[in-house]
């Protein structure tokens, strides 16, 4: 049962990942990417990592992809045809993607003995919390400070906007409001 689910999820993940690359319209690419994220979350659930699956959906499918969609809607990139790329850009893209693959292969090569046993409970919230707040406390705290700083920054940017508005005393346009 679990094996069939694994094959099904892998099939969906790979198919939709390919469609992300091959579909012409950026909106369709994003929708396929969302499906890819869902199938990867399914893999996490199969590994009994429910917390990771839920956070994956909330952060990637729920927040980041919405922002992607948002930008594409604002820029109105719904053209079916894309502009022709120069061969220099194509070669650069191939080199970038190739070196990315080398890095990924190198980093995942020695990872086989870290693989979680299927049905283990390391992914449950309690165990994950114990590991995060014990073994990895410093990196965890640092990354949370980074995120908090980003949020405070957003509030500050919003404040600045208000002050300039009062100074110039012009009614803000729709674009300003959206930002």
């Amino acid at each position: 049962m679990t094996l069939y689910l694994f094959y099904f999820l892998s099939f969906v993940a790979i198919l939709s990942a390919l469609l992300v690359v091959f579909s012409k319209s950026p909106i369709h690419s994003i929708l396929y990417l969302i499906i890819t994220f869902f199938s990867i979350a399914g893999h996490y659930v199969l590994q009994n990592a429910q917390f990771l699956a839920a956070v994956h959906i909330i952060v990637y499918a729920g927040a980041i992809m919405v922002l992607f969609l948002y930008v594409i809607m604002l820029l109105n990139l719904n053209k079916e045809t894309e502009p022709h790329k120069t061969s220099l850009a194509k070669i650069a893209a191939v080199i970038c993607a190739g070196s990315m693959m080398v890095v990924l292969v190198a980093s995942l090569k020695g990872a086989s003995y870290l693989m979680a046993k299927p049905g283990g409970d390391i992914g449950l919230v309690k165990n994950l919390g114990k590991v995060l707040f014990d073994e990895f406390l410093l990196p965890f705290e640092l990354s949370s400070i980074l995120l908090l700083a980003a949020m405070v920054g957003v509030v500050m940017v919003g404040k600045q906007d208000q002050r300039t508005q009062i100074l110039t005393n012009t009614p803000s346009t729709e674009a300003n409001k959206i930002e």
Partner: protein
Amino acid sequence: MIAFLTYKGILVLIIFTITLAVAAYSTYAERKVAAFLQDRIGPDRAGPFGLLQPLADGAKFFFKEEIIPNVSNKTLFILGPSIAMLTALMTGVVVPWGNELVIGGNTYLLQIADLDVGILYVFGVVSIGVYGIMIGGWASNNKFSLLGAIRASAQMISYEIAMGLAIIALILMTGTLSLREMSLQQMGGVGAHWNFWNVVYQPLGFLIFLVCAFAECNRTPFDLPECETELVGGYHTEYSSMKLGLYLFAEYINMFISSAVISTLYFGGFNFPFMNDLGLSANWITVIGTAFFFAKITFFIFFFMWIRWTIPRFRYDQLMNLGWRGMIPLAIFNIVLSGLISLFVHR
């Protein structure tokens, strides 16, 4: 295995039916409440007291002409309302509708799935819910729809943050992410083995969560995505027939589910005062508890409507100000406060 699947299947069917019925009659209740608050009579033609009005409305939606704009992306145009409806119905899975029933030695939990990460599941579904509006608004190929969709997504993302922060304080206090565990911790209420509901310990968190729930459901005073005075009909301007019906219906389902989640998190879920003093058997307590849970939900649905017909709509910059400069700092303050209190005063 078969018995387990049939029991879960029946439970899913029952909850699906109840959700749809409550959503249908919420439309009726909304008009009756509006009439009551504005000193009118409200719908009274279809059946006694107008009770058949939702059925008449539903039938009307099905017989209306279906218009799909020629220029729109057809697949996405149909996908929009489908996603809105799907995500609205998905959250009911983790809500504990009642405690357990023991029938013939078997224990039946009145909850479809008691997930270890229940509250995160709710958040995941809520964060996906915005796609229904965004895709529908974009596929309509109409400026007003697009503006409505963009407003909706900005609003929902902004208020999701404050909502999550409000929940973090609650999680700090309860020490669990499972909605059933949270309900069980609030067991008792007034009476023997007395115990307060979470709202007593988290009044600020509850307030933030409530405001954010209004924003997530796109209810007045935060119904900017469908603001008629500026945007014609907002994201559903181009929709007609049952597709429009699905969008409107999804809003009522969201209202029902968020009332259920608020009751579970802050108002004791299926617990009720004096539940340990009645001397009834556990099954009866469960049944009465479920009835109380639905009473709480009904109250919150009424509260949603009460606010709608009392407070006028916000302006868009006011909405963003409230979200980013009011709710988020307040929620962070609430987390710090809860952390300090749980550190120094062990509950």
